[in-house]
């Protein structure tokens, strides 16, 4: 692949990241003159002096007692060591520890959702495109108009109600012991699957249909292109035509939307996680928000932005690989 294209993209990603770091740092501080006071509201029994002592201790502990610009530099310095700061929670855990604890659980949901949606979506989409105009195709089209208008959290509530409460197939809320008792044994994995079934299902319903629709459209579009006619004229079997030529080219728009959805892997399931009490990044962020835990909020936002930037970068590079036409402008 074109080296200049890659270099441009990487440099550009770094630039965007720098801007995002600055924004992420300053936005929570807008209008908050004293984060320590915000986090530690005065207790009724404390006198003024005692309250000042407590606030000063909090400030020193979290590094708020230096001027803002110095805090910014300290923050940057911490980032080089992957240290995103210390949370306000009791026990003062590090933000990076909290994130790495919860991240796998969010990924368990979103990656599984993505894989299921892609797998079944592409299959259904290709199938519908093959049977274009027949009832299978119209079924997919109708289903997609339906599910795109239904938000995922509504589907989640419906599924919880029927599958969770009425028929008791899956637990309506996550088992609070699931995280603690997880030890990679078969039983533990089955428990996780049992609890993850409803959240994943709520997201996958929309995902499968959407990817299916998208695949169907691009397959139809590609099928009408000339080179497919050539391939058929050459005498290749329909199956070969389908796999070798049609699908490969139809995947391009899927790759773009895949790249977009990678950044949604982490932050996209906030509402679903909250509904099911699933201990992932989404609920972590909501907890941080309800306790005014600024270091944690900033850390999570930065992390999500970093992932989005990385995902964009990877998508662009992969796209450049698949479709060299886009790198045209960068040839020297």
């Amino acid at each position, binding site marked *: 692949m074109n080296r200049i294209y890659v270099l441009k993209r990487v440099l550009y990603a770094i630039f965007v990241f720098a801007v995002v770091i600055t924004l992420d740092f300053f936005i929570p501080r807008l209008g908050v003159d004293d984060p320590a006071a915000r986090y530690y509201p005065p*207790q*009724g029994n404390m006198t003024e002096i005692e*309250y000042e002592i407590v606030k000063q201790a909090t400030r020193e502990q979290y590094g708020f007692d230096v001027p803002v610009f110095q805090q910014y530099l300290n923050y940057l310095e911490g980032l080089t060591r992957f240290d995103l700061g210390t949370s306000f929670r009791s026990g003062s855990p590090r933000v990076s520890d909290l994130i790495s604890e919860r991240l796998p659980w969010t990924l368990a949901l979103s990656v599984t959702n993505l894989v299921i949606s892609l797998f079944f979506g592409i299959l259904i989409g290709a199938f519908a495109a093959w049977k274009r105009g027949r009832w299978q195709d119209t079924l997919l089209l109708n289903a997609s108009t339906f599910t795109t208008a239904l938000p995922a959290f509504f589907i989640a509530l419906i599924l919880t109600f029927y599958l969770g409460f009425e028929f008791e197939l899956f637990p309506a809320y996550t088992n*609070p012991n699931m995280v*603690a008792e997880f030890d990679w044994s078969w*039983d533990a994995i089955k*428990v996780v699957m049992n609890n993850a079934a409803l959240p994943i299902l709520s997201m996958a319903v929309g995902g499968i249909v959407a990817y299916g629709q998208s695949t169907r459209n691009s397959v139809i579009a590609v099928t009408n292109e000339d080179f497919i006619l050539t391939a058929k004229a050459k005498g290749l079997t329909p199956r070969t035509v389908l796999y070798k030529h049609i699908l490969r080219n139809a995947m391009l728009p899927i790759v773009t939307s895949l790249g977009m959805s990678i950044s949604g892997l982490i932050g996209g399931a906030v509402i679903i996680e909250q509904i099911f009490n699933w201990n992932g990044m989404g609920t972590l962020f909501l907890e941080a928000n309800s*306790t005014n835990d600024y270091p944690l909020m900033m850390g999570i936002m930065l992390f999500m932005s970093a992932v989005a930037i990385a995902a964009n970068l990877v998508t662009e590079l992969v796209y450049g690989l698949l479709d060299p036409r886009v790198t045209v402008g960068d040839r020297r």
Partner: protein
Amino acid sequence: MKRKCALLVLAALLAFSAAGCQASEYERRTDASNTLYAGVVASSFPVSFMPWLSRDGIAPTIASMLYSTLFTYNEETGLFEGLIAKEWYYVDDAGEPLLREDGSVDYDRVEAIYGAADKTYLPVKVVLNEGLTWSDGMPVTAEDVYYTFDIATNNTLSNHAGALAWTSDLQHGYSSGTLVEQGIFTYGHGAADMGYAISEEERDTVLYLHVNKVLGAVTTLFSTILILPEHIWEPIVTPTNQLNSKDPTAATLAQYGHPVGCGPYVLDADRSNAQVIVLERRADYALTAEDGSALYKVDTIKFILYQELNVAIYALLKGHIDLLDSAISTNYLSLFEEREHMFVSNAPGLFLQTLVMNVNPVAGEKNPIRDLLGDVRVRRAIALAIDQDELISRILNGSGTTVAAGLMSTANPLIYNPDAILLPEGLEARIAEANALLDEVAPTRDEEGYRTLDGARVSFDILGSVGEQETIAFLQVQLQKIGIEVEFASKGSSPEKTYLYNSKFDMTIQGVTFTISNLDIMYLAHFVTLGTSSNYGRFGDPDLTALIREMRTTLDLEHKYELILAIQSMIADEYYKVPLYCSNVLSIARTDRYQGYVTVRGSTVFNTDTLQNLERRDAS
């Protein structure tokens, strides 16, 4: 072909997921031991227990079961009941107890001796129970009490501002780590030098304290401070590794994780984590019931974390927990009414909801409409128009009690002033009187029926949280009858800093609780102190202030109670904080494994009385 593969994969996934059903069979259903499963609604459990933690939801509950205080305070009798300590009394110059013949404190003599100006402190003698031990077997001695109080006053070692507040009335203090004043005396710490005779046999159980000359000085010392084991903490705590350290050493962390206390339970750290906390009963706990059996009936307590109330209620309905240690809304009552094996604890509450008015805004926040709130007639009119019964029946579904204008709960018979109601019965009469009062101040009304002052409508914003919207909606309707408009204004996430401390509000809803043990602090905080206190409306009345100060400093207990009654009348007359209702505390427990739950005022079904009364049923 591909399609069949896909279907097979799908079927396999679903089968797997459903198979997890059996794997998640909750343990309570099959647990035959004497283990109580208590559900708690919180965002997370602490994993380490610094003994004086006060912020996190369940930490105070756990701490009070692992550690003990010297006494517990009985609100209804006003007396201290022994826990670590057995008895206490004020002593005279010779060290003799100042008691009456019936054993109660002789306040007349206390006042006679110590009322004089040259006496700067009150000496108190405390006698501990014998035979109490820490969970590692070491005995509880007076030196532990010395160590606890001592470190509480020494911020260099404790790094705990709250402890400073607890011991503010103890005349024992440090300055930058050096002892400047000693107010605790034990056999090993200068009792003899001070003239207090402690014999060799008494060395472990007797100590003397010098406290400020106020009756409330001992309350926090006796009933709030959890006593720490000296032999554990003294070797560990240094100025660089404080008790409440922000960067604790390994030794400290080990102690946080495996706390050693003298309470009835110990923490089973191996089985505890961020979602479950397990407490085991101590077999060697010295305090027993009257018949000699163990005081606490439950062997093991398992606290299970739920992050949302509905989740916890669901778990309770399914039988995953025995009880829910959280107050639930009365809307859920009908869920439990038809079910078997449910115990509903509908306890009267201790928290009163009041409407606070901004009677004295800072200069920059005054405006003609808000100034109306400075007129006591307007406030009285508003108080008269509020229909507490309607609020209780519509918002609390009847699970609540009305509140007297003196803001004292009926739970405290010693200090409840039944005359401080001052609101006549009969809503009609009250509204008529309110309208008459307001007609003196703002007689003109606009076309919608609201009163106007110089052309501007008399309209107030009530600062409230989202849950208080219903209350405010009802207040809107009630106050409309006297021509006053009120509207909901959102509190935001830090109301004190943004609105309340700088008078940027008209009215707000505030929960208050006045009990014998906290009056000394609370009356001051609510009705006298300006600035960052609970006195949001900056109320100040010289007579009331004088009464409160006298109440705090008098050494005559009976006189103090009289003053409290008088204060309530004055509070009632001022209508600065108008009572709305007092909500009951509703909580639920299952009776299929345990029976004998006790309803305690102001508490959920998980309380000390329950733990001392529960019996395991044979059917499980």
